[in-house]
C-alpha cells in the first residue's frame, strides 16, 4: 500500500523537514479536531498554501497530506452529522450506525499509522508514495525539475 520511490534528486535537510511537518500538521490537528473533522483539513490546507511555492519534494508531500485528509473529511463528516442527528433528533442508535463508526475508526487508524510512518520517512528525505494518493498527487503536482 505504501511504496518507497527513488526521486532523481536528493532532497535537502530543510526540504525533508518541511515535507515531514506537513504530515505532522495533520497529526497535531487530530488532537484538536477530533470532534470537528474539518479542523484537520484546514490545518493541512493552510500548510499546503504556505508551501505551494516550495520545492517539488515539499509540494508533493504537502499535497499528499492534504488529499489524504480530504478523503477522511468525507468519512468523518458523515459520521459526525449522523451522531449529531442521533443526539438531537428522532434518529436512534442502530447497528448500521455502530458499524459505520467502527469502519470509520478502522480507516482513521490506518491513515493515522500511515501518516506517522510517512512523516518519519520523509524526515529522512525518503520519498514515500501512498497507494492511490501517490498517483493522484503526481497528477496534480507538476515537476519543476
Amino acid at each position: 500500500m505504501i511504496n518507497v520511490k527513488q526521486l532523481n534528486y536528493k532532497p535537502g535537510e530543510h526540504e525533508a523537514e518541511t515535507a515531514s511537518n506537513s504530515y505532522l500538521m495533520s497529526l497535531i490537528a487530530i488532537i484538536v479536531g477530533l470532534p470537528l473533522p474539518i479542523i484537520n483539513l484546514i490545518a493541512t490546507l493552510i500548510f499546503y498554501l504556505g508551501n505551494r511555492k516550495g520545492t517539488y519534494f515539499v509540494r508533493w508531500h504537502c499535497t499528499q497530506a492534504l488529499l489524504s485528509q480530504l478523503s477522511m473529511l468525507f468519512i468523518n463528516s458523515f459520521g459526525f452529522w449522523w451522531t449529531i442527528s442521533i443526539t438531537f433528533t428522532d434518529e436512534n442508535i442502530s447497528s448500521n450506525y455502530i458499524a459505520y463508526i467502527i469502519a470509520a475508526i478502522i480507516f482513521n487508524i490506518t491513515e493515522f499509522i500511515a501518516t506517522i510512518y510517512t512523516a518519519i520517512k520523509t524526515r529522512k528525505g525518503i520519498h514515500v508514495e501512498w497507494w492511490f494518493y501517490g498517483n493522484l498527487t503526481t497528477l496534480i503536482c507538476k515537476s519543476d525539475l
Partner: protein
Amino acid sequence: MKKAIIQGAIIILLFLGTWFILTKINWVKVFKVQKITYTTEEKLGELFWEVFQKTEKENRSPYAVNTVDSIVTRICNANNIDRKLLKVHILIKDDINAFALPNEHLIVYSGLIINSDNQEELSGVICHEIAHIMLNHVMKKLVKEIGLSVLISMTTGNGSAEIIKETAKMLSSTAFDRSIEKEADIKAVDYLIKAKINPEPFADFLFKLSDNENEATNYLTWVSTHPDSKERAEYIIEYSKDRKSEYKAIITTETWDKLKELLKE
C-alpha cells in the same frame, strides 16, 4: 489518470464493503443498547412518579378511574396499543394539564377534565400524550435536556433528590420542540379518527384556551407550555378535514357530567 480513478474507486468500495460486512453484526444487541435504555426508562418512570405521588394527591375513586379508563381503552384498542402498558393517573389539581412520564405513565390533572367542555376535548389531549409516549418523545427529551449520564446516575441511586424533583417538574411543565409537538398532534388526530372520536373539539379546545379572555387562564399550564395554540388548532383542522368518518361517543353525557361534578367536589 485511469489508474488513479480505479484505485480511488477501490478505496471507496473497500470502505463501503467494510461497512456492509460490519452491518451484518447486530451491534445494538452486542452493546445492549436497547436493554440499557429500557431498564433506565423503567426506573426513571418510577422515580418521577414517586415525586408526584409525594407532592400531589391522586384521585382513585372507581368512578373517575373507570370513566377515564373507558376513553383510554377505546383509543388503545382502536390503534393496536397495548392498554396494559399505559399507567394512567388522575391527580387532584386545578391546573389544566396532562403529561407523560417515562415508562408509559400518563398523568391527567383534574383541572383538565373539569375545564374540558366534552369528552372529545379530553380524548384529544389524552391522544396527544399517548402519541408522545408511543413515539418515545419523553426519553428523547430527557436525554437531550439533561444527558444520558445524569439519567443513568439517577437510576443507580447517585442522583440527588433535588435534581430528580426538578426533572420531574420540567417534564410536567415544559413542552417539547415545536416539530415534536406537531408530530404528536398529527398522530393524535390519527388515533382519534381510528377510535371514531371527532378531532374537531380537540382543535376547538386549543382555540378556546389560547383566548386570553378565558376565565381559566391562570391555570393554563398545558396550553401556555405548548406554544402557538392557534396555529396548532389550524393544522389539526386542516389535517382532519378530508377524513370525515362516523363518530361514536365513548361515554354518555350523563357519565361525563357526573365525572366533572365528582372532580369538582
